[in-house]
């Protein structure tokens, strides 16, 4: 091949191969840098969630150890005052003190419930199955929501981070039922499988358009999805207006380190 054509041929092959190599290297570097970015975002978000749980635990302790004790003392004082009023024969005052004491007792119960719902250690102490049962009882007591709970016979073997995430998702889903579903009954099912667990919160209330992806719609659901993803799980929400809502969270047995 004469020199001129050889040069042209070499140029052509070199340019074709360089385009290929540059594009492949470009794609590979993008994939690698995106993996790095996602890993960093993930660990950052995990740290934020952990800090949030720690803050909730601190608040719960504060409520339990300080506020609740003071409320109990005020209640005792009011009881003593009522007895004194009874003894002095001031029955009208006694009745008013009794009414205030009842209010204070209700306040104490509300504070106790708030502290309990805030504290993540409930899952650690009693396990996810019982924690969900207790959550259902609290929602019935505080919001009048009748929650049917179905749990497996044995406690699922879960990483604590995953168990707390599943618990928080059930809690948020039940909160949504109280706020938006216009119904007084819901059901929670916890299913155990060799790969992981499934939590399902179902209601037959108002429902909504689950396909609506406008920015203002379902920020709470977005947060739940994000939380589920951080625990290597997934969240599926199926709903239609008037047809109720099913929130399904799936989580692996063990989360990645």
């Amino acid at each position, binding site marked *: 091949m004469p020199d001129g054509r050889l040069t042209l041929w070499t140029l052509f092959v070199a340019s074709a191969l360089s*385009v290929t190599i540059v*594009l492949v290297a470009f794609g590979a570097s993008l994939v690698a840098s995106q993996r790095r970015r996602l890993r960093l975002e993930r660990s950052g978000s995990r740290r934020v969630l952990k800090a949030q749980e720690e803050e909730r635990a601190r608040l719960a302790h504060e409520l339990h150890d300080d506020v609740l004790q003071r409320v109990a003392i005020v209640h005792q004082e009011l009881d003593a005052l009522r007895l004194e009023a009874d003894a002095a024969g001031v029955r009208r005052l006694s009745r008013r003190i009794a009414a205030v004491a009842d209010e204070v007792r209700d306040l104490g119960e509300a504070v106790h419930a708030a502290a309990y719902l805030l504290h993540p250690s409930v899952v650690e102490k009693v396990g996810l199955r019982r924690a969900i049962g207790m959550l259902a009882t609290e929602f019935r007591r505080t919001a009048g929501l009748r929650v049917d709970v179905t749990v497996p016979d044995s406690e699922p073997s879960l990483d604590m981070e995953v168990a707390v995430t599943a618990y928080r998702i059930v809690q948020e889903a039940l909160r949504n039922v109280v706020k938006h579903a216009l119904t007084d009954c819901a059901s929670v099912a916890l299913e155990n499988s060799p790969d992981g667990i499934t939590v399902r919160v179902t209601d037959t209330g108002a429902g909504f358009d689950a396909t609506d992806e406008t920015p203002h719609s379902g920020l709470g659901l977005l947060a739940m999805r994000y939380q589920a993803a951080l625990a290597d799980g997934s969240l599926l929400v199926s709903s239609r207006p008037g047809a109720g809502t099913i929130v399904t969270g799936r989580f692996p047995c063990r989360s990645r380190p």
Partner: protein
Amino acid sequence: MKTPWLLYAAALAPLLPLGGALLARRRPGPSTVWVLGWCCLLLSSDAAALALASRNVNNHWLNYAATPAATGLLLWALSLWQTTHVWKLTFGLSIPVFLVAWVALLVLVEDISTFSRIAEPMACLLVLAGATYTIATRSASEPAPLVGQGWFWVSGGLALYAGVHCAYGPFAVLVLRDDPSLVVRALEVRSGIELVAFLAIARGALCRTGG
């Protein structure tokens, strides 16, 4: 001269994305639909070009007729993948501008009885730039893994296809008179890279998201 098998394989390569879309068993995304339309156009124009070449009839005019439509389809597909309205509009508006430039080059510069020296490389550079820009901008904001996104593979395949086509035309024009066998060898190199490009596009057509 006997036509090398690699040329036939490259002419049939647009079937790969179509097969990928069929295998995926779901409706492809809007951009992928336009890319599949481009594959159909390529299949028919390549088949016609091969048929004409086998009868020793000049088929260059076919390339000049198909390239503006193919480039328009690709730019439109890429416009649907843009993340901002401004860039969607820019890609959309680039189509009529490109068509005007194409006609002007054909009338003033190109000889439609041979390989394109300027117009086709210009079209390919436009697609290469558009596809590379799409990959770069979308990957910066993509929250899901890139390898699972249809746009990533399809844009990558299109960039590769356009990149290798950029170099081929001017080279073919330069060596055609002195050594036509070198043109065929270059066509073989181009066909090999085209096959890789269509495999990437087919991989994109199989993706569940980002189509």
